[in-house]
């Protein structure tokens, strides 16, 4: 049986180009991940920032033995946005589809489906697989029972589960970064670049709750399924997704790899993940069918 792969999802946040490039260079050289999805998923206005360094990042990742996938936007509404997504198909890389709008263009060729397309059951996955979906990231809110039903029904598809990082919870036409800072979306001044892991949203009782990333809302807690990793493999899951943050993602990837390979105890790895991401609060509720904010 093929070993479980690790996918590094796209950087969801607005990072300066040099940070973005250096992050991927280190991933290329040091992180034991198999697939790396790159590209802007959240806000098309950010695409220009790293366009120039994109080719060298791809080249470096491939030299490091990673398979590179190009991620499409989660909510394209403008013509230039759907055109940009369609142009991703012109290259030699597999594309990760994050919105239904791209499904007609990828039909009949191998492609990946990202966590922003709703695959809640095996009927939907069977349909998409028949059109060429090969690597499929399930919605992060799915419980283990659903994951198992989907993965076991389609063993030929690489089914992936959101395993590390702030969990995407919603996307909107409205930019909350701009709103909080008193700007309109069209003249946002790119204030989202102030929060490299998202802007913390607290309750009025000062309890950290959510994280805002432009038009996207994420969990405050970082999903961390190190302790569930091997059980998920037993359900038929064949890839785990790690979502980039400013903490030590190479260390995070090494911990997941070691747990999957049976070289490190999951409890011990979980304890070490606090050292890799010291400021993170961890949660695993969704996979246990509980509130996503909980650590069960």
């Amino acid at each position, binding site marked *: 049986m093929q070993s479980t792969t690790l996918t590094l999802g796209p950087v969801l946040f607005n990072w300066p180009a040099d940070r973005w490039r250096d992050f991927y260079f280190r991933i290329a050289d040091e992180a034991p991940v198999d697939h790396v999805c790159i590209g802007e998923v959240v806000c098309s206005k950010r695409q220009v920032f790293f366009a120039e360094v994109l080719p060298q990042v791809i080249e470096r990742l491939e030299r490091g033995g990673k398979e590179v996938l190009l991620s499409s936007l*989660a*909510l*394209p*509404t403008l*013509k230039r946005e*759907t055109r940009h997504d369609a142009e991703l198909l012109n290259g030699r890389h597999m594309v990760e589809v994050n*919105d*239904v*709008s*791209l*499904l*007609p*263009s990828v039909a009949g060729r191998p492609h990946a489906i990202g966590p922003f397309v*709703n*695959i*809640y*059951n*095996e*009927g*939907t996955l069977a*349909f*998409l697989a028949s059109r060429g979906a090969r690597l499929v990231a399930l*919605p*992060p*809110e*799915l419980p283990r*029972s659903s994951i*198992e*039903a*989907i993965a076991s*029904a389609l063993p030929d598809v690489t089914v992936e589960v959101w395993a590390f990082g702030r969990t995407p919870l*919603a*996307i*909107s*036409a*409205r*930019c*909350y*970064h701009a709103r*909080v800072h008193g700007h*309109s*979306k*069209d003249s946002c001044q790119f204030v989202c670049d102030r929060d490299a892991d998202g*802007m*913390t*949203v*607290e*309750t*009025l009782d*000062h*309890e950290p709750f*959510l994280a*805002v990333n432009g038009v996207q*809302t994420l*969990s405050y807690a970082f999903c961390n399924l190190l302790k569930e990793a091997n059980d998920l493999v037993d359900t038929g899951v064949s890839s785990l997704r790690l979502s980039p943050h400013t903490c030590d993602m190479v260390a995070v990837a090494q911990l997941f790899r070691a747990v999957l390979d049976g070289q490190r105890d999951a409890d011990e790895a979980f304890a070490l993940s606090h050292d890799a991401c010291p400021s993170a609060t961890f949660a695993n*509720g969704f996979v246990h069918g*509980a*509130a*996503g*904010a909980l650590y069960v």
Partner: protein
Amino acid sequence: MTSSAANDLELICPAGTPPALRVAVDAGAHAVYCGFQDETNARNFPGLNFSRADMAAAIDYAHQRNCKVFIAVNTFPRAGDAALWRRAIDDAAALGADAVILADIGLLAYAAERQPDLRLHLSVQAAASSPEAIRFYTDTFGVKRVVLPRVLSVAEIADINAAVACETEVFVFGGLCVMEEGRCSLSSYVTGRSPNMHGVCSPPSHVSYHEADGSFVSRLGNFTINRIPARQPAAYPTLCKGAFRAGGTVGQVFEDAVSLDASKLLPALSRAGVKALKIEGRQRSRAYTRAVVGAFRAALDAMANNTEIPLGILLQLSEGQSATHGAYVKTWR
């Protein structure tokens, strides 16, 4: 189709219960939408929705009065357990529903194959927000109408209508999702219960209230959603309408406690080529349904007759509550 579209505009009205359905039909709905009594529809609330016998009688009542019935089967089937959802589609067809409103790709494939004569509408929960996405559903499953997500401006809706072959339907009144519908897990992050999986958002079972330090505190799950001075009217703690702290400010980070009122945009929406106007609120009272449906029907009749649109009634309905045009106006973003 843009200049005379007012003549064709359909008014799509909510029916949470059989009595509410009769009220909506009598008040002038061109079509009503409703769901079965289970988690197959996105308003899976206690005391709401229709048994099979209710539905048969409701369709009979509506059809006798030249009103259509659309059945919403618009949650995402639970993995390994799609039978409940498939039966909803088969029963909708057998009962003579005029359309089913679906969101799940697997369910659309099932309906297109097993019930080829059943008219398919795409639920707002499918979040089809571009011509390319809409064409996927029309070309693949023969979807005849798409309910557009509340992320588009009127100009963008006009562009979509110019680019697609199917009909479009838009929300004009009632509760407003701030996030794109069908892609929001905020509720399940806090309660474990979500619109997509369970047909609920910020469910009452997880709401609690208490007073502390002279404040009235609303909580959802383990999180405080709002805190207001005691004895002021408190809004229901829908997660995205709550008050929070972010970026050094305190307030409604996502959206104020507002509801959608696009009544002033009816001519613009008509010119944008939409086919149908949808009123939210299957959970609302019969009195509310009667008033809103009646007012919108009067407005549509006035548009069709080229007379002045009587907005007064609608303005009264949103009195005491803030209203918004939502994403229809670009500055909302």
